[in-house]
């Protein structure tokens, strides 16, 4: 969604992009002439050779003005790079097409699957799961947008970082749980701002690492459009996504949240219709919101009693204060459900007693028939 709006803002960019190349070539040639240096071959075989690259690339001011006025930086912090996961790799392990300096224009983008594929000779992590992630990414909304020519759509390094890649277990990693919202927020800025004020965002801010971050609901590599099959946040699939945390007894008890909301939803008309794929009935997000989920006692919450008529009114015409008179997520078998529990219990007793009496009558009748038949010798 955010991508779309950004693309709309910079509407000219993708089409304009085709014009950039010739301009770039011209500026390159001019730059080379300005240095007064003809391009010469360089060899970067080991990490030690990286110093050759840093001759130029350790300068923060090393930027290029693109034709659309944006600045593209070619600066790499040598210390940061050495500290990164790939710090022991020569620069050319990723920038494979660099053989001369100054570099010829029209360089290829870095291809991570050059190393991260099955049985690769570099020993780069490429388990079956890693490959599967890449396969998921290939079908994701991000990769398809990229393939369709959206230059803002994310490639591997937009989320994982490039020269600063470090394992996700490290706090500073862009894909460490605490940083995921900010990483996604680099593009999805409105969603990020909303999320920050939600209960999940606040909890994460307060160091509660179990709080849901973007990827918990949307998936990571395989994230697809809401309407697309396989979406984890579609009208039909949302309850299954929320339940991953909210039906976990242990996890929820740590935060004093009931773990029964999913089960009671499933038993409601909404939940039952949802099970059979009905899209128009309410799912979790219809009432609770999604990026803006807040607790019931927050006056801004969509399920705050004052806001409930409006929330229910999104679907139920004329919803008023009566919608708040009675509990939500009730379970007939739970005594805390009040009168519904008692009515259900009364019916259980009535049904049990009636059926028992009827069955007894039938059994006695059949028994007698057998006896009479036996007596008549038939």
């Amino acid at each position: 969604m955010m991508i779309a709006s950004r693309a709309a803002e910079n509407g000219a960019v993708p089409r304009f992009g085709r014009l950039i190349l010739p301009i770039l070539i011209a500026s390159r040639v001019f730059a080379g002439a300005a240095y007064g240096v003809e391009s010469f071959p360089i060899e970067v075989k080991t990490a030690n050779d990286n110093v050759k690259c840093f001759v130029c690339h350790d300068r923060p001011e090393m930027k290029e003005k693109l034709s659309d006025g944006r600045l593209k930086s070619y600066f790499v912090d040598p210390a940061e790079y050495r500290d990164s996961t790939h710090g022991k790799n020569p620069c050319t392990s990723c920038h494979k097409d660099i053989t001369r300096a100054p570099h010829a224009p029209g360089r290829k983008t870095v291809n991570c699957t050059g190393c991260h594929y099955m049985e690769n000779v570099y020993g780069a992590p490429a388990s079956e799961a890693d490959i599967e992630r890449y396969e998921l990414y290939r079908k994701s909304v991000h990769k398809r947008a990229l393939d369709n020519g959206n230059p803002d759509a994310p490639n591997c390094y937009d989320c994982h970082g490039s020269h600063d890649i470090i394992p996700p277990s490290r706090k500073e990693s862009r894909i460490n749980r605490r940083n995921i919202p900010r990483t996604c927020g680099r593009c999805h800025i409105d969603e990020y701002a909303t999320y920050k004020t939600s209960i999940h965002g606040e909890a994460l801010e307060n160091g509660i690492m179990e709080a849901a971050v973007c990827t918990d609901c949307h998936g990571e590599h395989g994230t697809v459009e809401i309407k697309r099959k396989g979406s984890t946040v579609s009208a039909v699939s949302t309850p299954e996504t929320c339940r991953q945390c909210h039906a976990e007894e242990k996890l929820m008890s740590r935060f004093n949240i009931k773990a029964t909301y999913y089960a009671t939803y499933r038993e409601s008309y909404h939940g039952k219709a949802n099970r059979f794929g009905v899209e128009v009935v309410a799912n979790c997000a219809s009432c609770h919101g999604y990026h803006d989920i807040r607790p019931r006692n927050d006056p801004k919450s969509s399920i705050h009693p004052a806001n409930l008529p409006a929330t229910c009114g999104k679907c139920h015409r004329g919803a008023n204060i009566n919608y708040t008179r009675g509990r939500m997520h009730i379970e007939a078998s739970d005594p805390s459900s009040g009168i519904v529990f008692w009515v259900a219990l009364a019916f259980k007793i009535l049904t049990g007693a009636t059926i028992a009496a009827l069955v007894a009558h039938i059994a006695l009748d059949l028994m007698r028939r057998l006896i009479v038949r036996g007596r008549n010798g038939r």
Partner: protein
Amino acid sequence: MEDKERVERLVDETARRLEVALDEIRRSGVPADAAREIENEILDEFRRKSQEALVDSVRAKILEKRAAAGAVEPAGEEWVLRLSLLFRVQHMILFSSVILLIFTGLPLKFPESFLAKLVFATQESFIVAKTVHRAAAASLAFFVILHLYYVLFTRDGRADFVHLLPRPKDALDVLDNLKYFFGASDRPARFDRFSYVEKFDYWAVYWGVIIMVGTGLALWFQEQFLTFMPKYLFDVLKEMHSDEALLATLAIVIWHFYNVHLNPSRFPGTLLWWHGRISADEMKRDHPLEYERLMRKRAESGAAGAGGKGTEPS
């Protein structure tokens, strides 16, 4: 007069046989004992045959008189109209509505059941089932109106309603049947037009329809309902709708199916619901009091010389 001739023929024939037999005996010189035995045999046969002829002739006379009086004892094959056309139409509307309601409603109560997977295969079939459920509910409501008309404005309906009212005899009938079931008595309760078994079915429909239609209306028109009623009341009605649905289904499947289909004297069911007729034998067995009243009525109307052939019981 045929019978007299039959007896006379029998006498002549026997006399002739005796004569022939005696001639034989005389000619062959059979001992006196054996001769008497043969004679006795022929006479025994005559006694039996003449008795049969006489009883037949008396029976014919009785039937003749009855026919003249217009009160015909139903022979084994006679069928008596038990349920009028309007009664049967009501029953058909009722059972088709209820079957549809059960098949489109129960899957919602048991969404994990096989039935649910069958009925709610897709999002579309879920919506179709909902529409069918409401159409069947409307049909059930039509049945209610039809039945009220039947009970209030037709002679049959008023009579049936009075017969269906519970009375102390029903309790006594239950006790009688329990005694019979436990062997303390060798004859089951003797029922009138409707047994307590049938009355239970009838009044259960009142209870069921009032709850199901009443709560169902609230569920159907929930937005209107909730504009002036609190949500907890809606929740209660929803719970009642679901629970009573199960009770009604079980009662029908267990009680009604046993009593009209599965019990050994009716298995696999009769066509009473279709043509409305019951055999005289079945009536004598299952509704003896009604049967006797019918016979009395026939006799009376015969005595009064009406000569009507009315077979409708009341």
